[in-house]
């Protein structure tokens, strides 16, 4: 019963968003059913559909978890985008600078760089909030732009291969590559970039669950998020929880760098993120701020992202922008849950996201 209740509102939001999107498609003179068939129909084909959907889901699981951890502490981390950029660059930097190291050393070092730099970058707005009370939303937005500027500067002025017209760094050492699924699943082509970072993402879902619901730290973070006054009264240092939650959130966002740099392009490529940080907000909200929900929501958005290519290629008028449109509408519906909840339960408002 509880599970059903958890599932029903996200499902209504998705269906409603598809209806609104369908009306939009109709108004531009195209067939919504055909567009949706292209959008979702390709996701289950073997090996490309499934491979690419899981590959696209990987960064979304990381950023979805990052936003989730923030929400559970009552914080809104809009900065996952900046955190993943700076962490991906740090990963590439370690992979380039220590290129000669054997994989046994280099892989953990690169992992550490991604996690640590992501955590540090996210800890900045945490500290600013804890120490000065400045709003994390504004600071994370500002830090997104600063991060993007910094990595673009370092790439352009210091780590680009001279003469390369593309804004990207040199390649990382072979010791920093992580295995693609094609290397150990027979019949699965190596060209599909799905790699072990996907398994890491699933692992992180478990870890986040254990951290938030089975440890003292997680308990303190959740208490801070649901009732800061009670938390303080109970002897929890709210300031410490804010910094801790932001750091964990940033570490999770930073792991996008592992997927991107160590498993996919083997270099830092400027502007690689397809709004992963912002889609993470949609993923966390639609997943009702639960790790299992995050996996499901990430799979949905990843399937849409993959299907977008087919829509672009085969549909007459509809472009892959429909994916972003659907995403926006889904978040609006999830946010304005009262819209659906009204007839169900008039008094349960605003209690949903922060327990």
């Amino acid at each position, binding site marked *: 019963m509880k599970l059903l209740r958890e599932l029903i509102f996200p499902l209504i939001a998705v269906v409603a968003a598809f209806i609104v999107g369908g009306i939009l498609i109709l108004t531009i003179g195209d067939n919504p059913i055909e567009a949706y068939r292209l959008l979702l129909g390709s996701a289950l084909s073997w090996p490309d559909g499934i491979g690419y959907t899981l590959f696209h889901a990987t960064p979304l699981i990381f950023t979805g978890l990052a936003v989730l951890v923030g929400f559970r502490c009552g914080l809104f981390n809009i900065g996952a985008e900046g955190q993943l950029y700076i962490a991906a660059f740090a990963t590439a930097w370690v992979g380039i600078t220590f290129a000669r190291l054997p994989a046994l050393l280099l892989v953990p070092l690169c992992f550490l760089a991604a996690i640590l730099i992501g955590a540090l970058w996210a800890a900045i707005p945490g500290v600013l909030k804890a*120490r000065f009370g400045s709003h994390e*939303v504004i*600071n994370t937005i500002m830090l997104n*732009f600063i991060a993007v500027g910094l990595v673009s500067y370092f790439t352009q002025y210091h780590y680009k291969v001279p003469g390369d017209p593309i804004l990207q760094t040199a390649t990382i050492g072979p010791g920093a590559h992580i295995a693609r699924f094609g290397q150990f699943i027979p019949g699965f082509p190596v060209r599909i970039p799905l790699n072990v970072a996907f398994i890491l993402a699933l692992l992180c879902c478990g870890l986040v669950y254990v951290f938030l619901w089975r440890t003292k730290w997680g308990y303190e973070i959740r208490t801070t998020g649901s009732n800061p006054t009670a938390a303080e009264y109970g002897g929890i240092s709210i300031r410490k929880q804010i910094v801790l939650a932001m750091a964990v959130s940033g570490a999770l966002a930073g792991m996008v760098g592992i997927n991107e740099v160590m498993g996919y392009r083997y270099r830092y490529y400027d502007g690689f993120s397809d709004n992963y940080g912002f*889609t993470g907000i949609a993923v966390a909200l639609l997943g009702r701020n639960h790790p299992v929900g995050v996996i499901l929501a990430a799979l949905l958005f990843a399937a849409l992202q993959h299907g977008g290519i087919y829509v672009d290629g085969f549909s007459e008028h509809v472009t892959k*922008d429909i994916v*972003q449109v659907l995403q*926006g509408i889904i978040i609006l519906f999830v*946010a304005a849950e009262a819209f659906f909840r009204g007839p169900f339960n008039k008094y349960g408002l605003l209690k949903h*996201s922060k327990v």
Partner: protein
Amino acid sequence: MKDISTWVLVLSMSTIRTSTPLVLAALGGLFSERSGVINIALEGKMLAGAFTAAAVTYAADAKLGLGAASPWAGLLAGIAAGLLLAAIYAVVCIRYKADQVVSGAAINILMLGIPGFLSGAFFLSSGSTPQIPKEHLMPWTPIILAFVVFVPLSWWVMYRTPFGLRLRAVGEKPEAADAAGVSVNRMRYSGVLLAGVLAGIGGAYLSIGQSSLFTRNMTAGRGFIALAALIFGKWRPVQTMLACLLFGFTEALSIQMQGVIKDIPVQFVQMVPYVLTIIVLAGFIGSSRPPRALGIPYQKEK
């Protein structure tokens, strides 16, 4: 080496141009935030204004043959688009009491998609509108509107009219305003809708004033810079305009110095507004205090 005085003149003119969309959007944000509704959706509203203005100006010019009237049609359409988006945002945030930051982010994501979606259908392009001929652009009107009309008008409305007083009261202490007979929701709807109008004009200026077409993600974060200027200007109209000029100056500088000054990487100049905002918000240079009820949906006592 260019003549210094020419360079200064070019830089000043460029600063005025780059500040105009910021001033318009930031004043919009001012009305919304002083009424207690956070507006991180400025970016999306500007995109809506920019796309609609360019598309309608082009259509009015090329399809309907409105000639010199076409940029006016475009401007009005841009305002209407900003207003429509603001209306959605207002209903979600005020009527349904949704989280304002979440809904704002949703509006922004939605508007990353809508222009591409529509231009793919109407112009068979991947996210941009066709070129508008130079004589049917609107290079000056929005600048004058921003600096000569809206800045003094906003100040006057905010501090010299009952409307402004009520708006500010609702943003600071909604319970007290409510007890005094002010409709909190009506004031907040007005604030958010005004933000839509002004951000719509700001966006329209980008596409039919500064440029001659809409391109994908044309605002490139200007909605967020406007928000930063609003914070930097401590949620006051004149200070906010000055902050917009400062931030516009950094943008103008980063454009003008390309090829002139090679020692300072352009990325660092572009970062200045963001770094300054973080510093000001933390209270290192003076303090910037948001309206007290900012971001909190108002629940009337039963």
